[in-house]
């Protein structure tokens, strides 16, 4: 039946876009505060790894989720110290963290699980039984997942925090004009730290999704999602809702790619779909997307 295919498509699209969305909203918090964060890729990877590790040792997937968030925050804190306290080049810091995360997870994978490719299988999160929504065929798989439900809440909560709270206002102002915020007694470094650590927590949670979805850790499993998330953040014009929308679109492109596999279109072309979609959208459709004015610029108080 046709509509079953449509529902399956939607369900797959949503599942694919979960880690993108979490990382893209994380990136939004970081960059709104003025810190470019390409370390999202490494944070996803570390989050997935700490999740698997904690679940493996405790047998409790919830502990795993917490560990993923903690791992993400820890990774992001390195980026924060390097780029906010030491005012180093933020792209370089991010790249270094990504390379380090690749190497470190591979190393510990070998030491702990004795394999160069994947960990042992871990327990997944229990499914929830949500009334009404859980009764829709196929889509029930979406609404029974605690992480998907959490992501939906996070999208709206983030939009609220960024635009309706004093923290959000301060974050946006230190990303646009840190001198102005400073002149009003706002502690620029502290607010920027908060933005970067928050991005670590969110992208770490995205890592937890990757691990839970697959019930294991595999080497390099973030496979570029952090970078796609950055693109989604830009397409979404540094708004959580916009980022989520962009991620759904990327999810749709990937889902389409999977549905088309096995048809008589050459696979190389099919595999290009998500990337072509990214390029086309970035280049043409969204109009001008203007980053925060002080994005990537370290703040120095008494400039000499």
């Amino acid at each position, binding site marked *: 039946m046709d509509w079953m295919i449509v529902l399956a498509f939607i369900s797959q699209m949503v599942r694919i876009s979960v880690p993108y969305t979490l990382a893209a909203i994380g990136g939004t918090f970081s960059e709104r505060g003025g810190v470019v964060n390409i370390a999202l890729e490494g944070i996803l990877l570390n989050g997935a790894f700490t999740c698997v590790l904690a679940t493996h040792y405790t047998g409790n997937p919830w502990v795993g989720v917490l560990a993923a968030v903690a791992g993400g925050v820890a990774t992001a804190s390195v980026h924060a110290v390097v780029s906010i306290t030491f005012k180093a080049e933020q792209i370089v810091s991010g790249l270094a963290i990504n390379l380090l995360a690749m190497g470190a997870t591979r190393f510990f994978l070998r030491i702990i699980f004795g394999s160069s490719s994947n960990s042992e299988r871990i327990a997944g999160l229990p499914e929830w039984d949500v009334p009404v929504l859980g009764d829709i065929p196929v889509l029930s798989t979406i609404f029974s997942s605690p992480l998907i439900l959490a992501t939906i809440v996070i999208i709206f909560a983030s939009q609220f925090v960024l635009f309706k*709270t004093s923290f959000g206002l301060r974050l946006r102002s230190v990303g646009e004009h840190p001198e102005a915020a400073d002149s009003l007694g706002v502690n620029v470094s502290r607010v920027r730290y908060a933005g970067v650590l928050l991005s670590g927590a969110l992208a770490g949670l995205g890592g937890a999704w990757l691990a839970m979805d697959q019930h294991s850790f595999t080497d390099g499993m973030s496979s570029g999602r952090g970078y796609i998330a950055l693109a989604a953040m830009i397409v979404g014009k540094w708004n959580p809702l916009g980022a989520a929308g962009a991620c759904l679109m990327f999810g749709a492109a990937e889902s389409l790619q999977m549905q088309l596999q096995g048809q008589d279109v050459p696979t190389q072309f099919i595999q290009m779909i998500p990337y072509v979609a990214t390029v086309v959208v970035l280049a043409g459709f969204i109009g001008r997307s203007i980053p925060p004015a002080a994005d990537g610029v370290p703040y120095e108080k008494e400039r000499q």
Partner: protein
Amino acid sequence: MSPPPKSGTDSPSIPFLKMEGISKQFALVKANDCANLDVNRGEIHALVGENGAGKSTLMRILYGLYRADSGRMYLDGDPVELRSPADAISLGIGMVHQHFMLVPPLSVTENVVLGSEPLRAGVVLDLKGAAERVKELSETFALAVDPDARVEELSVGAQQRVEIVKILFRGARLLILDEPTAVLTPQETESLFVILRRLKEQGKTIIFITHKLSEVMEISDSVTVMRHGKVVGDLKTAETNTEELATLMVGRKVLLEVEKGAPARGETVLELKDVHALGASKVPTLRGISLRVCSGEILGVAGVQGNGQTELVEVITGLRKPSSGSLRLLERDITGLSPREMLKLGVAHIPEDRLKRGLVPAFTVSENLILGSHFRPPFAGRLWLRREDIFENARSVLRRFDVRPQAPALPARSLSGGNQQKLIVGRELSRDPKLLVASQPTRGVDIGAIEFIHRNLIAQRDRGCAVLLVSADLSEILSLSDRIAVIYEGRIVGTVDSTQADEKKLGMMMMTGVLAKEDGNGAGES
């Protein structure tokens, strides 16, 4: 709380604010050197001094942005220690900075509440309540700001009023205004003064920095003069005059009037014929400009801000393409040439916005001094820039144009505003241009430097250069120009000889766009 003591009889001995022995050393300069400042409650206190005298630095210390190396401060007789602007704000001190501290994409209300956000239910920003309060303040003090407007869409004058609202919103008793009039048109300055008087009536104390001594005489109750980081004078406004202040500031007598001989007018250097151009928002802004500047003369362009002056300058320097009409430079058609080609033909440009168009703030002084000549000898070799020549050039320009400190390796942004301006003037004049386009050449510079820049503009004229001078300052136009063209709604509505012009006549033409006929005839006959 007891009612605040009325100023006058009770405690004239305890000033509202006392700063004592304040010193601050930067890497290369001692910006404040044991400076003392006493300000009485409810007065408007002017702070004047040359560029780089340390006025902004002293005020930044008072606002908690910089920490003094030594010295003490008292507010109402109590010693205060300021670790950050937050401390100053909680004591009722507010500051409007020389370069505004506004976040352009945010709304007026968001800018106003930033850092002191009113909350509902502990977390939610109460923007509605804040907007009400902004409206209230705006009405009480005749500030006319719209709480919902986005700051980047406001005029400079309106942005300044937002800064004032920002301070009042925090309940400030002491307002510091760092060169508020430098960026304002004469009309906007008048309305600022109305606001300041109203604030004073309400019992606020105001510190007001300016380079215009006429403003000091008009608005202030007392004056403090700074020089080289020290306070060199503390006077009642009523007991002093502009000459005395000028002498105190500069340390010598200053010529407030420029002396110039009659122009030796030569061939036509620049000629515009029926030039049309679009403005920033794609509306026709130049609507048929025709004018001519000869070698050896200064043509002043007078007009109310926003009548096409900016676009006119941009068209002549190649920064904006005219949509129709023609430009000729020394018999050569230059319509639509690029800024670099114009530069090569001998057009020099002192831009109105020094930070946007005049300098690269992060570059060093010596690098800024070769912008526009960086691609040719002696600064450019075959492959590399020639450091020695670049430094030698910097040293000589800094010396000739008295830019302080004379440090070629300093980033341009560390210079005080007036010294940045001298840097640009120095660079442009040392090109030995055939045509000099000077737009607001003395904005934000001290009287000593104004005298200096004016003398140099006249020296250029006497050398045979054609000078086009655009200025919002009518007295500057009147004292420098040989002829004055009045621009109105994108057209030149009349050109008068400066010997036959006065402020009243020009003012009429600027406001109405018509040449006052009888006046013109009368002047011609007499």
